[in-house]
Structures are given as structure tokens and as C-alpha cells.
């Protein structure tokens, strides 16, 4: 992969990030009324002091300038929901939990999807996977989470309904989040294998008498992975979205439930910081995926 190409991609990602910062900031600061409006018992002096501490008394461009400046220094402002704690502290406190959950889900859906797709393809049982894919496509986290808790935790008493220190308690949330991406990856891989087995060079290899196992493993697999790689970006975005629901349902103290709380309590700084956090992670991941795909398939011009 050429360096200028990667640099161009990085610059474009930076521009996207910058627009995201401005957009989030203006969207959130345009809201009339502050988080202290309901506390009418406060005296004007206290109120002004609070407005000043949180920087709400300056003009919008000034606030934006200040915000970007602080952002560069790694300061994302104070959370109003968590009594003036730094947003960065609040986020970093729950980050490990979400990272664990996210990586588990991602690993399960990637390896599970690839494994399932390959096995189904070789056993000619693609119909089952396609059928399951249809079912899971219609079963969002909001459906699966409560229903699985009802069945496995309340009726059968097999697994805990909320996450605690036991490993068993992670089974349900990971499963609920991973089911959809797994089914999607399996299906994409199967279509990819279908497509690459029809390619002339694979046909040639078959004519030479190379076994199908070897053809799939050595030749077709690499090409068939490209659609699944391209799907990883949307998959991760979907896992982020899903974790807002799943973490709220399973009582996990992570980024998703933090976002839900920030929304409910209208914590400006925290909402923007989380949006920016999700956005920058996804933008970064997409650059990474593009780079990997270029290595896999140098002919490809751009990812999407």
C-alpha cells in the first residue's frame, strides 16, 4: 500500500473528525437553558459562579474555541451528572468494562461468523444459516435481551440476569450483542466463497485436481474475506448502538449505559464527549480497516 494513499485517507479522516467536533458542540450548546435551570432556590451569585465554572457564560464561538483547545489537551470538560467530575475521568472509569464487552463480542462474531460460514459452506447447509440470518435480522437487542433473560434467568435459572463478578453473567449480554454480526459475517462469507469459486482461476485450480478443501483454504478464502472486512465498520457501529440498550438491560456500568444516563439527565459535556469518543474510535477503525483491505486486495480503490 502506498504511503500517499494512506496519508490522504488520514487527512480525510481528520477533516471528518473536525466537522464532527464543531457539529456536536454547536448542536449541544444551541440548547436553551442550562443544567441548573431547575434549581431555582440558588441565589444569583451562586448561579453565576456555577455558569462561570462550567464556562456557560461566554459566547458560542469563544466556548467552541476553548473546547477545541481543551480537547487537544485531553480535557473534555466537567460532567454535570457526576457532580463536576471531569468527563475524561467518568469515561475512563467505565472504559475497561466496555472494552472487554466490545472485544469479546467482536471476537465471537468474527471467529464465530467465519467458522459458521465455512462449515455451512462445506456441508452445503447454507440454507440453515440463511434462515437463521433472517430470524436474527428481525431480533434486535431490545427483543433478544429481555426475552433471553426471561427464559434463561427467570424460568430456567441458568444464568444471572445482571452482570456481576461471575463469568457466567457475561454470557447473555455477549450473546445478545454478537448474534446479529455473527449471522451477517457468516452470510457475507458464504456469498464471498460462492463468488470466488466461480472465478476463472479457481476453476483452473479445480481442473488441475486440487481438492476443494485446499482451494477454499488457500485460494478462495482470502478473497472471500473482503466483504466481511468491509462489514466490520458497520458491525462495530452496530455493536456500539446495541451496547446502549444491552448495558442498560443487563445493568453493566459501561459506555453505553453511561450514554443512556447522559441522555436522560441532559448532561451536555458527557453526551458530546461520548459522541466524540464513539465517532473518533469509529473513524480510526475505518481507516485501519481500509488499510487492511488494501493489503488484502491492492486493486481496490476505496473501501465504500
Amino acid at each position, binding site marked *: 500500500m502506498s504511503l500517499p494513499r494512506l496519508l490522504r485517507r488520514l487527512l480525510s479522516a481528520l477533516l471528518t473528525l473536525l466537522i464532527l467536533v464543531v457539529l456536536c458542540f454547536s448542536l449541544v450548546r444551541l440548547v436553551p437553558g442550562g443544567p441548573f435551570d431547575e434549581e431555582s432556590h440558588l441565589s444569583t451569585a451562586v448561579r453565576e459562579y456555577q455558569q462561570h465554572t462550567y464556562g456557560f457564560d461566554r459566547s458560542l464561538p469563544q466556548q467552541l474555541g476553548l473546547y477545541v483547545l481543551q480537547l487537544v489537551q485531553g480535557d473534555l470538560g466537567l460532567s454535570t451528572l457526576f457532580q463536576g467530575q471531569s468527563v475524561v475521568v467518568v469515561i475512563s472509569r467505565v472504559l475497561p468494562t466496555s472494552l472487554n464487552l466490545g472485544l469479546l463480542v467482536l471476537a465471537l462474531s468474527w471467529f464465530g461468523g467465519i467458522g459458521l460460514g465455512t462449515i455451512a459452506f462445506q456441508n452445503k447447509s447454507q440454507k440453515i444459516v440463511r434462515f437463521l440470518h433472517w430470524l436474527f435480522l428481525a431480533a434486535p437487542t431490545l427483543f433478544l435481551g429481555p426475552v433471553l433473560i426471561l427464559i434463561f434467568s427467570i424460568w430456567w435459572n441458568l444464568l444471572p440476569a445482571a452482570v456481576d463478578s461471575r463469568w457466567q453473567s457475561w454470557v447473555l449480554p455477549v450473546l445478545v450483542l454478537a448474534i446479529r454480526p455473527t449471522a451477517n459475517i457468516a452470510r457475507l462469507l458464504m456469498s464471498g466463497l460462492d463468488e470466488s469459486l466461480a472465478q476463472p482461476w479457481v476453476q483452473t485450480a479445480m481442473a488441475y485436481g486440487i481438492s476443494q478443501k485446499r482451494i477454499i483454504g488457500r485460494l478462495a478464502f482470502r478473497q472471500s474475506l473482503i466483504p466481511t472486512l468491509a462489514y466490520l465498520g458497520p458491525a462495530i457501529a452496530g455493536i456500539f448502538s446495541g451496547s446502549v*440498550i444491552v448495558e442498560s438491560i443487563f445493568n453493566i456500568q459501561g459506555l453505553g449505559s453511561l450514554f443512556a444516563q447522559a441522555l*436522560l439527565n441532559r448532561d451536555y459535556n458527557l453526551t458530546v464527549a461520548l459522541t466524540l469518543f464513539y465517532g473518533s474510535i469509529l473513524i480510526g477503525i475505518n481507516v485501519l480497516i481500509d488499510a487492511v483491505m488494501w493489503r488484502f486486495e491492492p486493486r481496490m480503490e476505496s473501501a465504500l
Partner: protein
Amino acid sequence: MSSARRLPIPAPVLSSAVFLILLLIGTFVTLAFDSTATHVEIALQGPSAQHWLGADSLGRDLSLRILGGARVSLMMGLACSLLSALIGIVLGTLAGARGGWLDNFVMRFAEVLSALPQLITIGLLVIFLLQVDPFKSPTSSFVALILAISLGSWTLMARTVRHLVAREKSLPYSESAVAIGASGLRIAFRHWLPNLAPSLLVLIGLQLPNFLLFESFLSFLGVGLQPPTPSWGLLLQEGWRSMTVSPHLLLLPAGLLFVTVLSLNLIFEALRKRLLRRNFSVDLHH
């Protein structure tokens, strides 16, 4: 679709029937009965002759709640699809037809929006709109939700339309329309839109389940529609709270949501395949 043909009725037809019946009965029920009337004496009762599906924790008839919720949720979903399609078609046509800085601007904006997880964008927009409250009406949470979902999800439509319009623009018929002296608006409305309509309608349909789900997600989290409005998200939330005592309060709305999303997927996937066979492209861009 060979498996669909083996059924006595094709799955898409069956699904369309399910969808329409839900919408019609839902509308009828909301017009005829009050789905928010509470009767504390029957709270959490199971199914009976008088209340077919039992009652919820406040003693509201569950069958009325679910059907009323069907109407609210389906109408919300339809409204969101139409609005987001409108935004996407207008912006996509402008970007595809004009090109240049406008194209760059719209597509860059679309890229920023699609860089975010959709639920995050929509959540942010919802609290923004609820706070700004541009309409000052008692139904503002409906309006805010519809606007937020549409503003957060027009990008797919805009990209698709831009792509398709750029293709149509280069075809001879567009050139001759320009040569005759047709205005840009006329070409867009009389030529491009009718040509692209089948693909666009299917794309709208394929996105409809997402819109239903976003409404449910946000209402479930407490930032969408507010009780006592019956909506599937709120019903799921209520069911989730009283799940240990009366599981049917959770299972019935959840099952209905599942069936609806499955039917919609089946209908529009079948339509998409049919269009593909006739060489219309329905580009989902991922």
C-alpha cells in the same frame, strides 16, 4: 426464494397482509376505545374473556395497548421513512446533479453522520430537539422523535440517490431533455424521479424496520415517547419491569415487534430481488 414458493401463500404476500391488518386494526382500536383507561382492580390479571390478553400493572387492557401501540409505532416508522427519504432524495439529487462544492459539502456531511453509531446520533438529536422544542405543542415528543430519527438517517438514501442520479445524468435521454430546454427541476421530477422510483421505494421499505426499532429503543430508554402513550418501546419497557410477575406483558409486545420486523424484511427483500431481476439497482452501500 424457492423455500417461499413452497408455502401455499408466498411469504411476502402473507407478510404484507400481517402488516396491513395490524395497521388497520390498530387504527380502529385507537378510534373506538381508550387504550389509556386504567382499571386498578384488574391490574396484572392474565387473559380472560373480557380482557383477551389480560391487563398491565396499571390495569390497562393489554390487547388495546398492543394494538394502539402498533398504530403509534407503525405510523411513527412510516413518517420517519417518508421524511428521511425526502431529505435524502432532495440532497442526493442536488449533489448528484450539480456536483462541485455542493456535492462535496453534502457528501462530507453524510460521511460525518455515518461515522457515528446511528442510535448515538439520534439520541443526541432527540434531546436537542426536545430542549429546543420548536413546535411548542403537546405532541412535541412525537415531532422531536420523528425529526431526530429522520435527520439521523438520511445519509444512505442521499448516497444512493446521488449515485443513481449521476448515472442517469450521463444517459442520452437526459442530454436530449437539456437540449430541448427542460429546466433542471423538470428533468429531476419528470424524468429522473419516475425512473428511479422503484429502487427508491424498495430502499425506503428496507429501512422501515430500522425506524421502528429506533423509536422502540429511545422510548425504552426513556428519551422517546412518554407514557401513557402506547408504543412498542414503552410497552416493552413496562413489560420488562413487570416481567417476573407477568411475563406475557413482555412476551406479547416483543413477539409482535419481531413478527413485524420479520414481515417487513421479507416483503422488501422479495421486492428487491424482483427489481434486481429487472435490472434496477438497489444499492445498499454496505
